[in-house]
Each structure stands twice: as structure tokens, then as C-alpha cells.
């Protein structure tokens, strides 16, 4: 009995690490489950108030300069808005002349503060300070003034988890703004993205702007995604190799906007 106790005591670390490895591998191979969502909700609910407090405290020092900057930006945007309103009216007239369907509006844009980042090497997600209390739902697009950031993957009582475009499992249907050529934009490591499925004969140049095409039905059309920084075509390849620099700096996200769309909105189909 004493020998067994001695053996158990000695081999305890080995048994523990074996169990830990087996459980981890099972979790890795397992898909998302209800228990996982419950565990995630519990953890976020416990940690979020502290994270929110720390983020708020940190931002406090920034408020004065931010206020000044925002006032200036407000004036600039108001002027730009006047010009755009004129352009919109002109656009409506032209659309009516061409019998085009009226483009759907992005109804509500909701400001949310980034309260935590994924505490990990690869930043695939962020936690924002708005959740079920603000009627947020899964799959709502998240943007900044510079472009598309990602989508909501989990909604908690007062917070939401946003999957960033930097997650390899979050590809976006995209197109080149100048030539309207479509492709699929996804993260492939490093700092840049890759635009895939663009045939080698298509006209894509460095400096071209990449925007969301709206084809997936999830992200609205026309959101800025980035700029083409490299175009190459490998020999005997059917597709171009296009590297895109994202328009959003994912490392410095502080506030984001959630595009709150009506539930019945259908994917836009151009005539």
C-alpha cells in the first residue's frame, strides 16, 4: 500500500500531463458545443467588468485630445456630407433613369468600445462593450471609419465577441473597386491578406482599392477592405497572386461600429 502511494505520488505529474494532453486534443478536434458557449459566457461575464474598467481608465487620459480631434473631424465630415448628399440625389435620379433597384440603406450604426483583445499570439477576436442589452446579434458586421473589421460571433448580456478578418476562418467576398473583379479575401499570415480566385487575365494593379462585394450576404457591399500592394502570376497558374494591405489597423482598435441591419434584409443582387 505504501509502495502504491509512493508510486502514485511520483508519477502524479506524468499522469496529469497525459490527461491534460488527451483532454486538449479532444477539445481541439471537437466542434463548438453548447457547453463551450456557456463556459465562454460565464468567463466573459466575470472578466468583462474589470477589463471595461481598465480600458476606460486608460482612455480617460486620451479624452481631451480625442475631443479636439473629433470636433475637427465632425466639421470636415459635415462638409463632406453636404457634397455626398448632392451626389446621392444625382445617383437616385440616374438609377431611376436606368430602372435600377433602390439600394438598401445601412439603417443603424452603433458605436461600441473595444474592452479586451484576445490574450493570445494571433489576434483573432476582440471583445466589445455592447451585447444583448443593445440588441446585437450574431453575424452583424463590425467596421471602423477605415473599413471592415469583422463580424460578431458570440453575443453576451453586455458584451460581444467579434471575429476579426485576421482570423483565417473569416474570408470575405471582395472586389476590385476600379474594375469590379470579384475574389475571396482571406488572411494568410503576416500582416497582409490575399485576394484569391482572380483569373490571371483580369486587370488588377498595385494601388487598386479592394472593397466588399456583398455577394456573401453577410457584409454590405462597398466597405473598404484594403489596397493591392503586390500582383504576380505564377507560371501555369490559372489565378493571380494578389497581396492586399488591410485598410484597418487591427492592432490599434479602440472603438468600432456595429452595422445593425434589419433581420429580413436579403443579400443584394445587382440587376
Amino acid at each position, binding site marked *: 500500500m505504501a509502495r502504491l502511494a509512493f508510486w502514485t505520488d511520483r508519477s502524479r505529474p506524468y499522469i496529469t500531463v497525459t490527461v491534460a*494532453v488527451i483532454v*486538449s486534443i479532444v477539445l481541439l478536434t*471537437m466542434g463548438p458545443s453548447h457547453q463551450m458557449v456557456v463556459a465562454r459566457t460565464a468567463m466573459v461575464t466575470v472578466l468583462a467588468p474589470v477589463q471595461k474598467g*481598465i480600458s476606460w481608465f486608460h482612455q480617460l487620459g486620451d479624452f481631451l485630445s480625442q475631443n479636439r480631434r473629433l470636433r475637427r473631424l465632425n466639421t470636415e465630415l459635415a462638409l463632406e456630407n453636404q457634397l455626398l448628399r448632392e451626389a446621392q440625389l444625382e445617383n437616385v435620379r440616374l438609377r431611376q433613369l436606368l430602372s435600377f433597384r433602390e439600394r438598401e440603406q445601412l439603417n443603424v450604426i452603433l458605436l461600441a468600445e473595444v*474592452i479586451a483583445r*484576445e490574450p493570445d499570439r*494571433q489576434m483573432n477576436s476582440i471583445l466589445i462593450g455592447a451585447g444583448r442589452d443593445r440588441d446585437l446579434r450574431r453575424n452583424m458586421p463590425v467596421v471602423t471609419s477605415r473599413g471592415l473589421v469583422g463580424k460578431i460571433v458570440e453575443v453576451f448580456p453586455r458584451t460581444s465577441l467579434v471575429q476579426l478578418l485576421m*482570423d483565417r476562418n473569416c474570408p470575405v467576398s471582395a472586389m476590385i473597386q476600379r474594375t469590379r473583379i470579384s475574389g475571396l479575401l482571406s488572411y494568410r499570415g503576416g500582416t497582409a491578406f490575399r485576394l484569391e480566385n482572380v483569373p490571371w487575365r483580369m486587370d488588377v494593379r498595385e494601388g487598386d482599392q479592394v472593397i466588399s462585394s456583398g455577394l456573401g450576404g453577410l457584409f454590405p457591399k462597398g466597405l473598404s477592405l484594403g489596397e493591392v500592394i503586390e500582383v504576380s502570376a505564377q507560371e501555369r497558374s490559372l489565378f493571380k497572386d494578389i497581396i492586399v494591405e488591410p485598410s484597418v489597423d487591427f492592432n490599434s482598435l479602440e472603438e468600432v461600429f456595429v452595422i445593425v441591419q434589419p433581420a429580413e434584409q436579403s443579400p443584394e443582387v445587382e440587376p
Partner: protein
Amino acid sequence: MKVLRMVLVFGVALILQSTLVRLVAIESIQPDLILLTLFFIALAEGSYPATIAGFCVGLVQDLYAPQTLGLNALSKSLIGFALGFCRRGMFVEGLIPRSLILFAAVLLHDLLYFLISLWPDIGAGLNRFIFVGLPTALYTAVLGYVIFYFLHRKEQLQPLQDIS
């Protein structure tokens, strides 16, 4: 009591890692406070508690990631286990050897992490390991050295304060 203290320390490390650490980031490279904490736990408590602590804190970290549940739990429990064995070695006494072990631990953790998370794209995994894992390990080791230095000085000053 010891467990409660451990939970508290990891909780603080986790919150700091997800909020304020980006303020000291150099070109988006941040020190890993969670591995640093695990290193201290492993040296103080040994393999068994460090493995469990690594697994638990890794699992909590995994809950933030939409896709890779279990990845941090796996890599951190293995690192906690390996670090716990260093406790038995006599080479962990000096400041530089401690920092070197910390450097190696972060490096090993990141190798595992990137290879598994980006599997089967080994090229991308190695690329991330070199451009993210290596500088992170260096940054964490330097921060660890600074902390070891202050702890070491505090230990040296302790008897003098007691005398006065």
C-alpha cells in the same frame, strides 16, 4: 489559499494581457505575461501544479478564440510540466539562466502553438514562429530578467530591513 492566490495571479495576468499589454507593444510584439506567470508558478511549485495551472489558464485563454479551443490548454500544460522539472535543476538560480529558460519556454510554446494552429500549412507556421514567436520570446525573457532582478534585489535587501 495557495490555489486562490494562483487563480488571482493568473486572473490579473490574463486581464493585463487582454487590455494594457498592447501599450508596451513594439511593432505589435507583446510580452506574454501568462507564460511569465506560469514560469514563476512552475519554479515555485513544481511540475504537478504547473501542469494543472497551465491547462486551466490555457483553457480560459482558448475561450476567447472562436475556433481553437484546446490549443492553449495543450501548449501551456506541456510547458508548465517541462518548466516544473527545471525547478529540480541547479541551473535556475542565476538571473541569466532563468531568463534563458524563460526564453526557451516561450519559444517552445510558440513553436507548438503556431504549428498546430496553422496545420497543415507548415511554412506559414514556421513563418509566424520566426516573425512573432522569436521576438515575443525575446521580449518576455527581457521583461522576465527585469522582474528577476528586482525580486533578487528585494531578497538581498530583506535581511537589512529586518535588522533595522
